């Protein structure tokens, strides 16, 4: 009488991971069952792909390419190091120039000649404030 099909043991049979009894049973079954025999061959061919494709020849330029990438990176890094230093320096200069300009303007504003126009502008602002906000908004429309 034919024994039960053993499809589920075959991958372990191929990898020689079955106990002696199980192994004997599988071998006995394969002899009498064409379907299991055929699946075993199918499975073996499939798993054999790994043996065929593994450890491919690595391209001879592998390190050359890597080395070029490292060079590129280092050039970029020196550049970005420069910009890391140059950028804050530039913005500090702009800031200092701004502060200096502000002080300069401030000291000018306190001088009598510029006092006059400043007052008129304040008056204008006051006129603006006197106008009711509703009419201002309506004008906008």
């Amino acid at each position: 009488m034919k024994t039960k099909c053993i499809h589920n043991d075959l991958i372990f049979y191929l990898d020689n991971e079955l106990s002696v009894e199980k192994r004997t049973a599988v071998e006995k079954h394969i002899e009498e069952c064409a379907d299991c025999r055929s699946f075993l061959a199918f499975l073996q061919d499939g798993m054999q792909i790994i043996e065929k494709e593994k450890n491919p020849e690595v391209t001879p330029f592998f390190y050359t390419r890597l080395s070029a990438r490292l060079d590129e990176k280092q050039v970029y890094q020196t550049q970005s190091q420069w910009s890391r230093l140059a950028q804050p320096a530039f913005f500090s200069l702009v800031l200092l120039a701004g502060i200096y300009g502000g002080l300069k303007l401030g000291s000018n504003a306190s001088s009598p000649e510029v006092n006059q126009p400043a007052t008129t502008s304040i008056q204008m602002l006051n006129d603006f404030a006197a106008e009711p906000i509703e009419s201002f908004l309506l004008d906008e429309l």
Partner: protein
Amino acid sequence: MDEAKLIEGIQQGDRKSFQILVETYQRMVVNTCLGIVHSKDDAEDLAQDVFMEIFRTAENFRGDAKLSTWLYRIATNRSLNHIRNNKRKRFFQSIEETFTGGRNRPSEISENRADQPDQNITDQQRSDLLHRAIDRLPEKQRIAFTLNKYEELPYQQIAEIMEISLASVESLIHRAKKNLQEQLLDCYKKKCV
């Protein structure tokens, strides 16, 4: 040259030490990536990234793990990330195609060819089938299986690389093989190649 000296050299930015390291381990790294991504070109690109990372982070390397362990970890991580990104890209491509009415890509598995004898199965079809089956394994099973089958590493070393117990490695590889066998049996029954 021993590992510690090599690492020390790289930590000081010595290119010669780096070259020796690369040439010693490039086959191993490319092969590990290949087991996961299945394309030699992609595997070499990924291996390049692995070594760039090694050069960049050499100062973090402490002597308590083997150099190969470190390389295997980076290689498997990067390969899995590559697969995840590809999946994401394909997902968005398929959405785009849905909206732009793009051409339907041919289904991944070739149609039932039950009337053809098995001898006509080419190596290409076989390898497509196997790769697809490997891709469907959960990530941990895939790593353990790849390290065991492509790199022929003993379970103990795989346990160190994956930072899990020996029993877990045994179980992962056992399940991986069972899964692969089921998928291949399914295909065999349906004559999918």
